[in-house]
């Protein structure tokens, strides 16, 4: 099985494969932030911190314990979720922008902590050995993406997802409907961070070298960009946003040093013309229904 999958992976051009894996990891990270910001409406500016918790947990578990990769992914996710609950418990009880400030601070503190811990090899960073598994890493990325999308799609349409959306729309009204806003916000935060932890663990093993300064404020903003660009709360939007922003450096490569300038201009133009993101407010169900109705209407008339 493992050999067969390895052969399949080898068929794909390494450069394309590298981009695909990066997109996949981007999607997982962005979907996680989408639970927190898109569904529950809480602004987190430290998503990269939870990614780094997953990355270092995964790396250390592989190095020290040689843990099987599947279990390792789960452990990394849970570790990130655990920290998010510790941060979320005091801050999510307050409404407003406290979470944004707290996560921003948490991310910076965590970076400094990782830079000074022996187990994370201080400022030198960690070299990560290949994962302990016969299945190649890209397959793990693919499975994780599929699971992440499925879980989120199910969540959105459930009683749980509705409660999160209610909190996003109007917290006072949500409470008046019996929704325990604090509990739901913490749960959303934990789920989002779990995604980040899994994404971080995949990232660590894919890049094979991690350094605390890889997970700074800019990385958090990158992930936030993916979510906002694609459309807050929309799964296809987030996938599109993650894909576009991950590949942007590739297809803007011909512009050399003006790349980031153009990137910035594109973002501004998008925010002017599609303030809700590329696919924000677009319902695919509606679109399909509309096409269907158009086709059936003439026959009725």
């Amino acid at each position: 099985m493992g050999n067969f999958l390895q052969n399949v992976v080898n068929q794909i051009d390494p450069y394309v494969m590298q981009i695909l894996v990066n997109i996949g990891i981007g999607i997982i990270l962005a979907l996680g932030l989408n639970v927190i910001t898109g569904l529950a409406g809480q602004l987190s500016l430290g998503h990269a911190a939870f990614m780094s918790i997953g990355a270092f947990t995964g790396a250390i578990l592989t190095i020290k314990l040689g843990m099987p990769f599947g279990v390792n992914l789960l452990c990394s996710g849970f570790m990130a979720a655990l920290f998010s609950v510790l941060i979320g418990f005091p801050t999510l009880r307050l409404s407003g922008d406290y979470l944004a400030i707290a996560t921003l601070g948490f991310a910076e503190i965590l970076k400094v902590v990782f830079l000074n811990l022996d187990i994370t090899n201080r400022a030198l960073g960690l070299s990560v050995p290949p994962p302990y598994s016969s299945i190649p890493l890209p397959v793990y990325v693919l499975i994780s993406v599929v699971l992440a999308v499925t879980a989120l799609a199910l969540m959105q349409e459930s009683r749980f997802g509705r409660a999160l959306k209610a909190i996003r729309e109007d917290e006072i009204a949500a409470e008046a409907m019996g929704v325990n806003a604090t509990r739901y916000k913490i749960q959303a935060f934990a789920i989002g961070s779990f995604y980040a932890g899994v994404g971080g663990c995949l990232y660590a093993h894919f890049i094979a070298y991690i350094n605390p300064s890889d997970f700074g404020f800019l990385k958090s903003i990158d992930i936030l960009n993916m979510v906002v660009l694609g459309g807050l709360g929309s799964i296809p939007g987030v996938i599109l946003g993650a894909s576009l922003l991950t590949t942007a450096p590739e297809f803007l490569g011909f512009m050399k040093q003006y790349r980031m300038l153009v990137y910035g201009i594109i973002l501004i133009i998008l925010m002017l013309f599609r303030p809700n993101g590329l696919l924000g407010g677009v319902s695919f169900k509606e679109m399909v229904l509309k096409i269907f109705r158009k086709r059936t209407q003439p026959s009725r008339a």
Partner: protein
Amino acid sequence: MTVLELDKVSIRFGGLVAVSQVSFNIHAGEILALIGPNGAGKTTIFNLIMGLYKLTDGKILFKNINISSRKPHQIAALGIGRTFQTIHLFNQLTVFDNVLIGAHTQGGRNMTGALLKWLPAIAKEEKDLHELAFRCLQMVGLEKKRDALAKNLPYGEQRRLEIARALALKPSLLLLDEPAAGMNPQETKELMELIHVIRNSGITILLVEHDMKFVMKISDRIVVLDYGAKIAEGVPEEIRTSPLVIQAYLGKVGAR
């Protein structure tokens, strides 16, 4: 039977006593109106009942349970539904989703339940919630608009959607904060009929309203507040002729 009992309820905001020593009971199945001039403390009492403010003094009993120190979501879960003076709908969600969220306390499935929606027990719960939400929409006559976004409804329908959402909570007590505000005479008449239907389905109603004709017609009893204190309580006829009430609204004869 008493559904809600306010016992010497007071709240102070700094030096301002917004509500002082107010006591009254709401009996099962009645429509009780809370009236008073602007700033008399009507909405403050609503917020006290729902747990948005903490009492400075006194206690509030709902079905003999002391709810004075409970959180809003806990109080809602006990069976008190409310609408808001200024509309508080979930704007970006559909009409149906708004009511489904109202039915939140009628379900119990959580995070893991969301991932296992094919299990019969979970599928059934979701189906029950949908049916309940649909019945509530029917009750206020909005079932045809179920897929519209809440923010796109006209004002009167938004008001009715708020009521439908509160009904989905299966409340035994419904608090309506100025339900007729901004409505035209036709809408007000329909609202009155709706409130009667709700009461006849066994829900007790406490409402705050400024439209006196509306209040006098619909209420079984009226409690009058002025400057945070209760000044009168009784059936509409008593209130209409009470000198204290007339004085609170119109001022003293001969005073300048």
